[in-house]
């Protein structure tokens, strides 16, 4: 049930840790850290344009990382841009793509269940352009209103940005359908895969979105890196985002020409070690197998949903039939911060707050929620420990 737990060195230091906050950021697997240390000690130099051996192998490793990440998501590496994370990727699209054509009165579709990363850049852009942010609601179970989505399109609709999986509700949205609908209206669509990438198979070639993004740190990988997939037809037309070295073909004070392809959007020295670590995390998950990961996490989710019923006074938000191992809840009369603090005393790590999804949490009339989120590293004992501690919270607060 937990044969991969040993790959996570955090448990050597905290054998009793019940880490239930993978949705915020996952713990790391040893092979990722080894790959990065190896890069830094044996295979390091700046990439691109260096003629000597170390620069050559660093460049090779860096570009091989792009291939591996592409393979994990079944996408052409020539369409994989390394970025800091999902947040940067969405900003990049809003700035270098949508900003170029969005006009006053146009509309951008997002949903109620977006993370701030997929709200604020669009909000700012719409504000600047006097365009309208159209918000698709979800029902009480946390299922996106697909009819509302379908009906939201009109000739003013110029961009769609939707999450693949909600970081609060766990809902797996019907990405393929969402993309097909946008496509039928010739509206480009970005899918925020930050919560999907480590938990369900993501086949970009099959989904065929215009943009897709995820962050490595939620995929058992390093901080400071993620990717943006861009459909080929947009890659050429998009204006550069940040600019500087590494992304130009030639510079004079009167004329500058930019590179084509992913490097056009990778100004400056990239996060070389991070990209290599990211690829190693992808490889690790491919070795484990996405079907194992899914069934492991689904089994734990079933167990968690069953067990959590035994705690009095809990209300769970997010009951979509199709969801990943994320369970957010409110406990009557107890503030989530108090829950998280008490759980912490029992080495149970859960997150409490608005989860960077204020519009969603507010719509539930909650000041904040407590969230349990699962990953490959978890086992049933983690859940038992959490449930036991939740019962303790009940006790303390009903004294």
């Amino acid at each position, binding site marked *: 049930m937990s044969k991969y737990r040993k790959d996570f060195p955090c448990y050597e230091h905290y054998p009793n840790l019940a880490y239930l906050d993978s949705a915020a950021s996952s713990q790391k697997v040893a092979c990722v850290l080894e790959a990065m240390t190896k890069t830094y000690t044996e295979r390091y130099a700046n990439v691109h344009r260096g003629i000597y051996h170390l620069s050559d192998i660093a460049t090779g490793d860096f570009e091989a990382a792009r291939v591996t990440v592409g393979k994990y998501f079944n996408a052409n590496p020539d369409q994989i841009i390394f970025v800091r994370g999902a947040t940067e990727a969405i900003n990049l699209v809003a700035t270098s793509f949508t900003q170029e054509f969005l006009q006053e009165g146009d509309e951008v579709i997002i949903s109620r269940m977006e993370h701030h990363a997929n709200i604020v850049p669009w909000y700012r852009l719409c504000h600047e352009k006097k365009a309208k942010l159209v918000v698709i609601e979800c029902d009480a179970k946390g299922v996106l209103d697909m009819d509302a989505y379908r009906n939201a399109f009109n000739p003013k609709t110029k961009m769609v940005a939707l999450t693949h999986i909600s970081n609060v509700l766990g809902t797996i949205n019907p990405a393929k359908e969402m993309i097909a609908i946008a496509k039928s209206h010739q509206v480009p669509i970005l899918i925020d895969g930050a919560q999907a990438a480590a938990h369900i198979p993501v086949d970009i070639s099959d989904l065929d979105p215009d943009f897709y993004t995820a962050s490595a740190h939620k995929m058992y990988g390093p901080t400071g890196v993620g990717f943006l997939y861009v459909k080929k037809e947009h890659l050429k037309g998009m204006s550069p985002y940040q600019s500087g070295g590494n992304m130009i073909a030639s510079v004079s004070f009167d004329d500058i020409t930019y590179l084509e392809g992913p490097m056009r959007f990778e100004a400056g020295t990239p996060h070389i070690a991070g990209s290599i670590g990211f690829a190693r995390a992808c490889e690790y998950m491919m070795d484990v197998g996405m079907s194992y990961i899914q069934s492991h996490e689904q089994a734990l989710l079933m167990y968690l949903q069953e067990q959590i019923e035994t705690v009095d006074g809990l209300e769970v938000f997010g009951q979509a039939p199709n969801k990943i191992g994320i369970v957010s809840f409110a406990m009557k*009369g*107890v*503030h*989530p*911060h*108090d829950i998280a*603090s*008490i759980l912490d*005393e029992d080495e149970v790590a859960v997150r409490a*707050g*608005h989860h960077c999804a204020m519009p969603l949490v507010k719509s539930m009339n909650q*000041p*904040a929620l407590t969230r349990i989120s699962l990953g490959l590293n978890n086992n049933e004992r983690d859940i038992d420990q959490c449930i036991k501690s939740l019962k303790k919270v009940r006790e*303390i*607060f009903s*004294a």
Partner: protein
Amino acid sequence: MHDLYQELIIDHGTHPRRFGPLPEHTHHERGHNPLCGDDLTLYLKVEDGVIEKVRFEGSGCAISMASASLMAERLEGLSVDEAKKLFEKVHSLLSGTPVEGLGKIEALSGVCKYPMRVKCATLSWHALMGALEQSSEATEK
């Protein structure tokens, strides 16, 4: 015994004293932490430099509610200067310096070990200082 959630904290956190509006207030101030959602409004009735009546309203975690409740109880009858001195003492307590003579408020001393929670405990106290820095609302008008 739980460091953070002593009985007194749970009691005041779940049944805050001096909770409610105070129409005859002379000073009031909102304390709001958008990041964690704690949100309260403090009302003071100050007469001749003495805090005669204290009330507060709002919602938040047990730590912030208990801190506000204990503060409200303690403030009534103190002069404005005494209240400011009390703020300093509580500030020290929550920063980890042992302070004596704070009575029930000492139940908050465990908070200093939880940096993420300190701001919950200080919310009402900062609202107090904000309120006292204003001239009385009557004079304002």
